[in-house]
């Protein structure tokens, strides 16, 4: 039994058909706004695009089954326009460009049969291209060049109509005017260079749930949040949107409303990440009573487009980092993590903190990765070179490693800062420290074997804090309180602002440790500021 022939492609998907509505300038143009044209288009199809304030294109491809042939569709459009008080030009054609140009040129209703777009456009004046300034001319400069071409060059060349331009050899045209000439000729032939981009209404992303039984714990709330966020995330995905701000509105049994607002560092729509962030925020700011209604409102933003690469290492996603930072904030406190920032000051150990960025997929990291693979190859090559000479236990000569460190690598002697300097007792002979001891557990102290210094630093002596502190010191009774008040001024870091005046020494002790100690010249006291490690 012979099988049925496969259906024609045209039977499966309707042939493209576009209608264009053009509102010519008139005295009532101000009264009839673009919204009216859009409302007419909306009556016929959800796929419509506003080309200009007075020009709207509608995709009417599927309406032939519903309304009839193109002529009927055009008549219906025109009737609807008249009913709304709009005197509009209506054109129906197989391409957007042809429909738009015809609508611009001819009043009333014009229907162009499929495949006859070029012949229908041919008698139209070339100046029509100047009126049809759509998005194909992306820049103003290009639009001006189009005008210039149409108005001046066409006269010189003897071109009068779109047909004249369409019949010119494309290669020669492009050779004289560049790539834009190809676009002009395509328009003159009624060909579409861009697909129709349907307009979308602003969508509100909001969901709420009334609870039969009020809840007061976070655990049941997490299920509610998931239930609300999942459909919202799906809708966001369909619209290619991410969450910029997440509003959590909790109506309490006391009829009060608790509102939390989470500004996300990067657009995201992952339900688990959003739920975790909301829960962590609510954990830090709990509701005062049980909750009987939960509402989620999302401020959307265009979705994030990420181009991954094969040549760089995967970084934590912004969702992962946002969740991590929220968890760290709940655990450590918001001021205990971030990016360290070197501060432009002479204050020893000064620094500041900045928020840690959540999006690190930048071009710079790719460039770095290329350089890093070169350094790995270098290390591996050296490894191979030494593999033949070393045994199971070997030692690189001091000169080799020290030379490489100094010349190429410059390994810096690092410090470990005592964020609050450790009070020390320092014996001085001939103006140099000879013994350092402390009462602090872990700092044994001992005789000084080597020392370097002193390096005198001072700053911000012009500020008022110094006088305040001196008076404060006089008022404080007891040694420990005196030290505490003094620490805050001498503490390294941006938090300890105020004047400082001290002599610094680098000392190595008999226990093998190297410290940076200083004498506070105001208080005439010694402290351990840092450990060289």
């Amino acid at each position, binding site marked *: 039994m012979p099988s049925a022939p496969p259906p024609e492609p045209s039977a499966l998907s309707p042939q493209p058909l576009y209608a264009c509505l053009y509102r010519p300038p008139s005295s009532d143009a101000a009264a009839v706004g673009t919204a009216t044209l859009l409302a007419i288009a909306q009556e016929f199809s959800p796929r419509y695009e506003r080309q200009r304030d007075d020009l709207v294109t509608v995709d009417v491809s599927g309406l032939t089954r519903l309304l009839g042939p193109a002529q009927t569709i055009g008549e219906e459009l025109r009737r609807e326009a008249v009913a709304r008080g709009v005197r509009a030009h209506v054109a129906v054609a197989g391409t957007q460009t042809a429909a738009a140009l015809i609508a611009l040129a001819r009043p009333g209703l014009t229907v162009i049969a499929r495949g006859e777009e070029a012949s229908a456009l041919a008698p139209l004046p070339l100046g029509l291209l100047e009126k049809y300034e759509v998005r194909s001319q992306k820049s103003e400069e290009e639009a001006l060049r189009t005008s210039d071409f149409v108005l001046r060059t066409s006269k010189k060349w003897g071109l009068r109509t779109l047909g004249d331009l369409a019949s010119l050899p494309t290669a020669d045209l492009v050779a004289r005017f560049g790539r834009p000439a190809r676009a002009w000729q395509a328009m003159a032939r009624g060909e579409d260079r861009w697909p129709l981009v349907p307009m979308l209404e602003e969508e509100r992303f909001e969901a709420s749930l009334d609870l039969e039984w009020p809840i007061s714990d976070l655990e049941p709330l997490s299920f509610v949040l998931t239930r609300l966020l999942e459909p919202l995330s799906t809708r966001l995905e369909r619209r290619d949107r991410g969450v910029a701000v997440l509003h959590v509105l909790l109506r309490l049994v006391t009829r009060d409303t608790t509102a939390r607002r989470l500004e996300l560092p990067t657009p995201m729509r992952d339900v688990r990440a959003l739920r975790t962030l909301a829960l962590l925020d609510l954990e830090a700011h709990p509701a005062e009573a049980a909750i009987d209604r939960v509402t989620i409102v999302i401020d959307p933003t265009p979705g994030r487009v990420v181009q991954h690469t094969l040549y760089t290492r995967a970084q934590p996603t912004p969702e992962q980092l946002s969740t991590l930072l929220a968890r*760290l904030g709940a655990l*450590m406190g918001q001021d205990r993590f971030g990016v360290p920032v070197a501060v432009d000051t002479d204050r020893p150990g*000064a620094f500041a903190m900045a928020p840690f960025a959540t999006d690190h997929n930048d071009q710079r990291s790719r460039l770095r990765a290329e350089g890093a693979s070169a350094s790995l190859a270098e290390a591996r090559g050296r490894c191979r070179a030494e593999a033949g000479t070393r045994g199971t236990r070997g030692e690189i000569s001091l000169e080799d490693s020290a030379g490489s460190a100094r010349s190429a690598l410059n390994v810096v002697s690092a410090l470990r800062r005592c964020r609050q300097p450790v009070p020390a007792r320092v014996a001085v002979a001939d103006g140099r420290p000879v013994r350092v001891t402390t009462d602090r557990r872990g700092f044994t102290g001992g005789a000084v074997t080597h020392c370097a210094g002193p390096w005198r630093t001072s700053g911000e002596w012009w500020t008022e804090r110094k006088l305040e502190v001196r008076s404060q010191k006089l008022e404080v009774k007891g040694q420990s309180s005196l030290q505490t008040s003094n620490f805050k001024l001498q503490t390294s870091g941006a938090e300890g602002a105020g004047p400082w005046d001290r002599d610094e020494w680098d000392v190595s002790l008999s226990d093998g440790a190297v410290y940076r100690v200083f004498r506070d010249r105001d208080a005439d006291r010694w402290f351990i500021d840092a450990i060289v490690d």
Partner: protein
Amino acid sequence: MALARADLESLLRARQLDRTLTTALPQIDPRDEHALAPCGISALDARLGGGFPRGQLSELVGPRSSGRTSLLLQMMAAATARGELVALVDALDMFDVESAAAAGVDLERLLWIRGHLVTNQGLCRELNQRAIEQAMRAFTLVLQAGNFGLVVFDVAEAPADAVRRLPFTTWLRLQRMVEGSQTACLLVGGEPMARSSAGLTLKFGSRNLETGMRFHGLLFDGLEVQTRIVRARAREQEEACVALSTSA
């Protein structure tokens, strides 16, 4: 007997318990550049076979002023230069930003988590122990987030007994968390802490009291540092020494 042991090991492997009960860590393929994190010091990288292994706990241990922090900053600089993100859990809040900047660490790619250190504990002696445990929880969170190139847990100046009081299973759990990931995990302390969970341990020690530190007149010039590489759990027991030099 040998057969019985092989059977037991295969059973453990089938249940993915082999790494916790035996000393075998997954072997590092030296040709896989994503399996190693070079520290940026070519002499040391050569000794390490290309760098520190990723997916394992490594340790930098040694006494005060032995050069641990200098090497740590060098590793962080190398990691950020590769475009990786680095997390530093600074349990006692002793990180020096100037030193890091001088070492070439890209600070924008460094997540610095500062522990709560209490200088005067008063009657509450457990505060700093709690600070270390809190830092350990932060360290776990960072490892769970994943995809950091280098994650450091720094308790170098913490009392040894405070670190020892962390449950032993902590290190096993961390090893399981980091295993198979692209993260180089580094513990910095006064003495080895992860014990059998550690993959690679670098033991630091100053060479000599007289020659281990360089002083030139009024200037402190740097440290002469000797490191010993110990691969505790590797299939091939290896121990090697590398001499390094730092400059102030």
